[in-house]
């Protein structure tokens, strides 16, 4: 039995909220069901009851906040907004809308002093020395992501909650993440959902329309968008990754499906060069039993839960 693909959700003005390639359509009820059980299971097995989510104002972290609230109740969720001085005010407003809608605990931690304290501001050098004043946007973006990680892990202690990851499958596969930055978490409920699938679940669970509609952005500098920076659209990229990886199609086969050969080659390279970001660092094998090699235990087992 093949069910008809559901209509793409429409916004208040009656136009579609997003573009949805047919092969990426999922049953959002089943997705929410699985994710809810996953979130509860991760917390219970670790002996924790609460969760911390870093909320950027974008769709990924908003969706995670809604999913966690649905799974364990908003009273057990704390959202942390961590803007930098150049972050878009609209992002912060969107994050505040999400917090208000969910009714969860929240706080704002400005990371500007942390980032500026390292790179310096104006002509005053920071901890990085004079050279830091000329740091590239990439270095600054990575550093900001790692400062946010540090804040979240501190709040993990003060709030008594596990840090929930907010990275999606698309950005993970192409390596559009900061190692030990935005990718750091205790567990990730949406890391196996492509961006197009994040949008479907977001629409189903009630993420505000303006959050779903706006162009995805790492918000590292004003006006930045993922798609302009990377040079392709998410629906196209999601489809390509779906056929190449999930459906194991060869380069020749996806080109025959209509993908541009140069795009295929470029995306393949991005996936290959970011392999290290998706794995635990290797340990030099020396002793008889080595973690991850031949010492293989579940993360959570009797005795491993806190308390």
């Amino acid at each position, binding site marked *: *039995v*093949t*069910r008809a*693909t*559901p209509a793409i959700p429409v916004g208040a003005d009656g136009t579609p909220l997003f573009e949805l390639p047919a092969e990426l*359509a*999922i*049953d959002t*009820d*089943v*997705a929410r*069901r*699985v994710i809810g*059980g*996953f979130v*509860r*299971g*991760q917390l219970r*097995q670790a002996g924790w009851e609460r969760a911390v989510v870093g909320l950027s104002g974008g769709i990924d972290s908003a969706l995670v906040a809604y999913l966690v609230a649905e799974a364990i109740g908003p009273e057990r969720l704390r959202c942390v907004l961590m803007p930098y001085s150049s972050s878009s005010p609209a992002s912060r407003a969107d994050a505040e809308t999400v917090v208000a809608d969910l009714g969860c605990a929240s706080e704002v931690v400005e990371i500007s002093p942390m980032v500026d304290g390292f790179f310096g501001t104006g002509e005053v050098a920071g901890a990085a020395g004079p050279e830091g004043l000329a740091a590239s946007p990439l270095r600054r973006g990575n550093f900001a992501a790692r400062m946010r990680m540090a804040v979240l892990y501190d709040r993990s202690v003060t709030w008594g909650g596990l840090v929930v990851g907010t990275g999606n499958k698309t950005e993970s596969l192409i390596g559009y993440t900061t190692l030990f930055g935005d990718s750091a978490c205790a567990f990730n409920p949406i890391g196996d959902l492509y961006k197009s*699938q994040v949008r479907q679940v977001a629409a189903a669970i009630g993420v505000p329309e303006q959050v779903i509609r706006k162009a995805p952005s790492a918000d590292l500098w004003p006006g930045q968008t993922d798609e302009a920076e990377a040079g392709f659209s998410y629906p196209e990229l999601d489809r390509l990754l779906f056929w190449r990886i999930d459906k194991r199609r060869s380069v020749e086969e996806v080109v025959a499906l209509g993908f541009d050969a140069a795009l295929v080659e470029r995306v393949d390279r991005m996936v290959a060069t970011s392999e290290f970001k998706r794995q635990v660092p290797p340990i030099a094998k020396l002793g008889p039993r080595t973690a991850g090699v031949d*010492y*293989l*235990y*579940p*993360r*959570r*087992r*009797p005795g491993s839960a806190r308390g």
Partner: protein
Amino acid sequence: VQPLRIALAQVAPRLGDLESNLARHHELLGQARDGGAGLVVFPELGLTGYQLQDLAAEVAMRLDDPRLSRLASATTGLSAVVSFVEESGDHRLFIAAALLEDGEVRHVHRKLYLPTYGLFDERRFFSPGDVLRAVPSRLGVGVGLGICEDFWHVSTPQILALDGAQVLVNVSSSPGRDLAMSSEVGLGTASSWRTLMRTYAQLTTSFVVFCNRVGVDESISFWGGSEVIGPGGGSVFSAPMFDEGLFLVDVDLADVRRERIALPLLRDERPELVSREWRRLIAERAGLAPDSTAEEGAEDGLDVAAGAAPGRPIGFRGAGGGSSAPAGPAGPPERAAPAKARPKAGAA
């Protein structure tokens, strides 16, 4: 009319926590008994959890383990299928399912097919069983046990039915995956299982009892959806997906007779034909007989003939009949002439 009330214990075991899972089994056996059940089925590794890895050796039980005996002694007037890690006398570990009846361990099935691909890594930690038998049961019919992947091999339910099983029990820890709108129930795994269980019930004209766990081990969510399928291939009961629970299902075992009289598929099976052809296949795959579907010129046991590939593949004899004339790095590769006569293995 041979009424039977089946209890499907769709539980979420705690990973590696044998004592708490044992307690839960005792509790549910009691509830099932109070509910009038005659057969209680627990999922694969319901006593230990699934994603054990190196914990497998730490939760293993021998068949003489007193904890297993105590569980068996809770089955007076009942049949129950429970699953755990079994350690043999020579210290191999098996994924096992036991039929407990009237206080005894009546039968033990060791998982035959250990998936070691994709998200599965079972062969790394477990040994495969070597025995497939149906067993007479206090229910008055033969029972056949299979564990998860065992039922992804079509011979398993067929052999069990031919061996006398009228109720096929599959206990599973099936990880949910392949979320897709194109699937019947939104989950590719669930759709595949539903198709298979209906097909086996119809082809073996037997009841199929499928008990799949719920809950989460590490990354994996188990989808439940346990079912009882009648011997005509129709669903008698489908448990909800993902919900834990003890589900009671009434069946009439006399349906098996009616179905087999009307549709005598089992009567018409040809085990001697199947056996003969399998023996031929086994010999061909072992290189002990010519393979009718291999390329011309292929050595017995290999289905592709040596071609004009550079270098001389190891194990292929050239026109010289086994003389080794290695192609030098600069020399052109010699094409091995197809061997017309098929030399027996070891002949030079």
